[in-house]
């Protein structure tokens, strides 16, 4: 499965970069987050409550910024699991300034397991797009 997309944020690139590295902003913008804390710089632990089609549940996991090229790109390693299954993914994010705005593009190939894969797989890329949309909309509001 492939997840990819891009969103335009009405703010300069440096500002968007700042927002993307602020744990409080991330916690406010990520859909379904019930808890999120930065364990150390670039390493976050989070608890999310999500529903993907017939699969609902609580996921716990962590996200680590494994490669960071301020202010243009970062690579994230995400691992999460819960009763409905697990997700492991490496995601790539790029930021390009276009005038006063910034185009944030992301792509990754998550590996999913458990009921999430068995029952939710067909729905997952649609849900991922929707959740990403919510995230970037909120990020736009923060900017």
């Amino acid at each position, binding site marked *: 499965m492939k997840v990819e997309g891009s969103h335009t944020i009405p703010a300069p690139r440096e500002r968007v970069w700042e927002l993307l590295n602020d744990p409080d902003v991330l916690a406010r913008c990520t859909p379904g987050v019930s808890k999120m804390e930065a364990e150390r710089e670039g390493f976050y632990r989070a608890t999310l409550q999500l529903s993907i089609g017939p699969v609902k549940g609580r996921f716990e996991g962590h996200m680590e910024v494994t490669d960071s090229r301020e202010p243009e790109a970062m690579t994230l390693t995400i691992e999460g699991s819960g*009763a409905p299954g697990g997700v*492991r993914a490496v995601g790539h994010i790029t930021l390009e300034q276009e005038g006063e705005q910034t185009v944030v593009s992301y792509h990754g190939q998550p590996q999913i397991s*458990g*009921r999430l894969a*068995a*029952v939710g*797989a*067909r729905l997952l890329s649609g849900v991922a797009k929707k959740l990403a949309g919510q995230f970037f909309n909120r990020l736009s509001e923060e900017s």
Partner: protein
Amino acid sequence: MAKYVGARQKRVEDPRLITGNARYLEDVQLPGMLHAAVLRSPYAHARIDSIDTSAASRLPGVVAVFTGQDFADLNPLPCAWQAGGVTNNANTPRVLEIDKVTHTGMGIAVVVAEDRYAAEDALAHIEVAYSVLPTVVDAKKATEAGAPQLHENAPDNICMTWECGDQDGTDRALGASDVVIREHLTNQRLIPTAMEPRGAIGSYDPGTEEYTVWMTSQAPHVMRLLMTAFVMGIPETKMRCLSPQVGGAFGSKIFLYPEYPMVAVLAQKLGRPVKWTESRQENYIATTHGRDHQTDFEVGALRDGTITALKVTTYANLGGTLSTIAPGIPTSLYGSMLSGTYKIPHLHCQVYGVYTNTAMVDAYRGAGRPEATFVIERAVDLVARELNLDPAEVRRKNFIQPEDFPYEPASNLLNGLAYDSGEYEKALERALEQVGYREFRQEQQEARQQGRYLGIGLSSYVEICGVAPSKWVGLPGEGWGAGLWESANVRVHLTGKTVVTTGSQSHGQGLETTMAQVVADELGIPIEDIEVKHSDTMSTPFGYGTYGSRSAAVGTIALYNSVQRIKEKARKLGAHMLEASEEDVVYQDGNVFVKGSPEQAKTIQEIAGAAAVAYDLPAGMEPFLDDTAYYDPPNCTYPFGTHICIVEVDTDTGRVEIKRYLSVDDCGPVINPLIADGQVQGGITQGIAQALYEFAAYDDSGQLLTASMMDYAIPKAEHLPHFENSHTVTPSPVNPMGIKGIGEAGTIASAPAVVNAVVDALSPFGIRDINMPLTPQAVWRAIQEAGR
């Protein structure tokens, strides 16, 4: 005179089934019963680093949580069929896995709770730390260099290698052939999907130290043996196994699964009965799958269509661990049957049985023979195509003829087994005539002029069933190391009412009807006077259960033999009652009388009463009419026939429509045509399903993507044509009733008939083959690639 055998007798089981009064496992409620739910690995290949059950244990309603360590004293499940030297590297599941999983869905912990909801909910609170390992799901890739290794004792993931026939002779014959055709075939993985999921209930009596286990099994006696002697290490006399009404199985309920000994041990540990039933999703990820072969073959032929040789290499995917009889399916039941209905002088088959990070693969309706029939029936069509001959003509030219029986195919059936009898050409001619073959070819030509693509597919099959002679399956190294005879007990009670018990087991086949039909005719009593009982180890003689189309050809023959001995005793007692000499009396239609004087008769009811009251028996005769027979067949039986499918392919959308489907099957004399038709139609449905719809898909990380009925395409009635079923009757010389068996024939014949029809329809595009399932996408893509 036969009154019942051969009649379309309505099934005696049906009233209780259709009024909701049948008692399935889920209907069994025991006082104080607890409910179990199994935590299953979400990963296909992982080490289990730690399991923390403390939070789950504290939840309300939860009685106990166990992990693999709690069952460490139990042996792993046995693998009974040891083809290809599997003993050296067999890897089978444990009741719960302890340190490693090799496919998704393996059990690693169990919650036992006051109700099912509490048990299911608690699963989410068990914390497991896994180290995820690399995966491989494709059988051929699993054997290649650099593939992840599943088991230390199986280098390159090869579980077994097996071959049959003569390799050098086959190579030479291929070299001397006018044409040699090579093809790669995929026989995709299927999920049996019985209507009733699996389940089990364990109960333990501390006073007698006896276990009682209810289970959805096709073979309760075998389950008892495997659970006690092999897994738990207790005397088999300390366990009673029962299958209540079983709602379909198709092979998937032959096997011993981890949950069965688990509920027995849980009941003993907790002092209360414990029930476990699987969800549909568990059924998809943790019950066995079927097929999953990748095959390369070369077939050689002369210009006139005579087939000279067949060489086959197959990679059979067996899953992450071995199921109960897994190695036997792609070997003795597949490779040995590759000659089909044809005289192929040279044949060689090499099979690699391979471990991959997928669910276990074992017998699924037809078990090996659908895969074999698919190879040979596709090969014959490819020969016809290559030589521009009619596929019916190539079949005729190569058929084994009636005078050739008993026939030993070059694939070697082992231990002197040979095809029993057959009139293959007769069944083909009957089918061609019924379908109007010549007229169809005309119609096909005309349709093509109009841009419509019609196709016709033939499939002339032979299968091996009535498993099995113990001399065949009992042989160590090749067989099960166990016999496969069958048993029956006939008891004519004081009033003449008769109870029959059988070691066979009915899970939809209607055995309670067909067996009663045979007894009613043989004993000469009304069918209403007969009860057929099965599936309880306490009240039936030891038997091997129902699979491999064996309950008519083996189980019913045991019953037939038992009735003959009852009749002989009744005849002797009748003579005594008539004060006549034994040599002068006969048993006929339920009466014993002196030859020529039927008006002075003793009825079987009178004789049964006399045998039970027993105050006046001939010297030395034991009371009661009661007999147990054990029947070990001298050979398997070999049903055959021809199926024909006509399709129309919409070349714009790739959609295949089945216009007609016609079968001519020969299972010897038919006991009940109503039931035989049902078996054939259900079988054809599963074959059509494989050809057009079903496919168990795994992603590269070993996640089953088709783990629900939303994604796994079981056909509905609207997807199926009207079936035109008929029979020829060629008795088997193997048993006294001439019966061959009909349970699997439909599935075995049908997939190649459909694929041959679609390929025939698309022959103007130069299409030679399309991998199953022939979904609109697959067909459309093949048309596009062929470049219109």
